[in-house]
């Protein structure tokens, strides 16, 4: 969720307030620069990409939903700009691994969506993602309130890092059965939430592999 301060800043920028634009840059330029520099060591190129990120934000303002966290939105734009840069400069690793027109690079960077993705609407994907994000957000909030960082760690390792139950159990210092129980309960809640929103959880592999 975006902060009130960010929301106000965006409103002012929409009214072409140059001071607000300056504040936005002062607030976010440093972290964006650090984010880009993680992937690209050329300082001048980093500066260009950060600049393009801000310009990209401004040009996408008519479509920007104020409820979306501004920081996350800016990081997403920066990620796209990094990929564009690596592609332009021929430094994307998939380019080195590629050998023909059907290679990974073309699959990854093809600007035109395939017919199947056209058939499956973007709007529906957004609805599904939002439902999962809401369910996960509620779970995480509840665990945070209880100070239950162990559960958060377990689920983050399983879902974000894709670790196996046994590795998570070893890392966190609990039994595999406990990990499996935490996973089962969380997946059940998320699936129920998605179904409750009138959507199918089947498009999420983690939700139908139990």
């Amino acid at each position, binding site marked *: 969720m975006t902060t009130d301060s960010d929301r106000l800043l965006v409103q002012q920028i929409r009214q072409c307030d140059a001071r607000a634009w300056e504040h936005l840059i002062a607030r976010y330029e440093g972290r964006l620069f650090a984010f880009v520099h993680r992937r690209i060591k050329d300082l001048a190129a980093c500066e260009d990409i*950060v600049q393009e990120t801000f310009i990209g934000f401004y040009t996408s303002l008519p479509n920007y939903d104020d409820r979306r966290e501004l920081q996350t939105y800016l990081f997403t734009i920066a990620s796209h700009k990094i990929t564009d840069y690596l592609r332009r400069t021929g430094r994307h690793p998939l380019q080195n691994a590629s050998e023909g027109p059907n290679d990974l690079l073309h699959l990854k960077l093809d600007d035109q969506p395939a017919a199947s993705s056209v058939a499956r609407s973007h709007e529906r994907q957004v609805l599904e993602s939002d439902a999962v994000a809401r369910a*996960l957000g509620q779970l995480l909030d509840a665990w945070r309130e209880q*100070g239950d960082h162990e559960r*958060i760690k377990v689920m*983050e390792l399983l879902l*974000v890092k894709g670790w196996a139950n046994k590795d998570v159990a070893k890392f966190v210092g609990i039994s595999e059965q406990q990990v499996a129980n935490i996973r089962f309960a969380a997946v059940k809640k998320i699936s129920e939430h998605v179904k409750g929103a009138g959507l199918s959880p089947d*498009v999420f592999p983690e939700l139908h592999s139990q």
Partner: protein
Amino acid sequence: MIAREVLAAYLDDTLSDVETAQVEQALRQHETLRRQLRGLLQERDRGEHSVGAVWRRNRLSCPSREQLGNYLLGVLEPGPHDYVEFHLRTIGCAFCQANLSDLEAQQQENTPQVQERRKRVFHSSAGLLRKK
């Protein structure tokens, strides 16, 4: 062995620099991994999601900037401190690492270089606001 979710994070360019380098090296060396990546791309094309990707994209477990600042100052309670450490080091969240680097830089200096860089970004983009 590179987990499927790490590959997905690689595609989204949201891995830490260390993990990105590991994935890139593995991709160059292993055809099976490239095949796995191709499968992942095809799944995305079919509109399949991943709960992990939703988690990452929405930064659902990322500590707030204030928490990261308190972590840096060493004033967080042991539980939250341990979690922030885990999120930064074990999960390797690139967004939070960037925030932390920025906060560290702010603590150390607000150099004329950084000020100049921000001015350049402002002057190169502020004209957009007047064009409306």
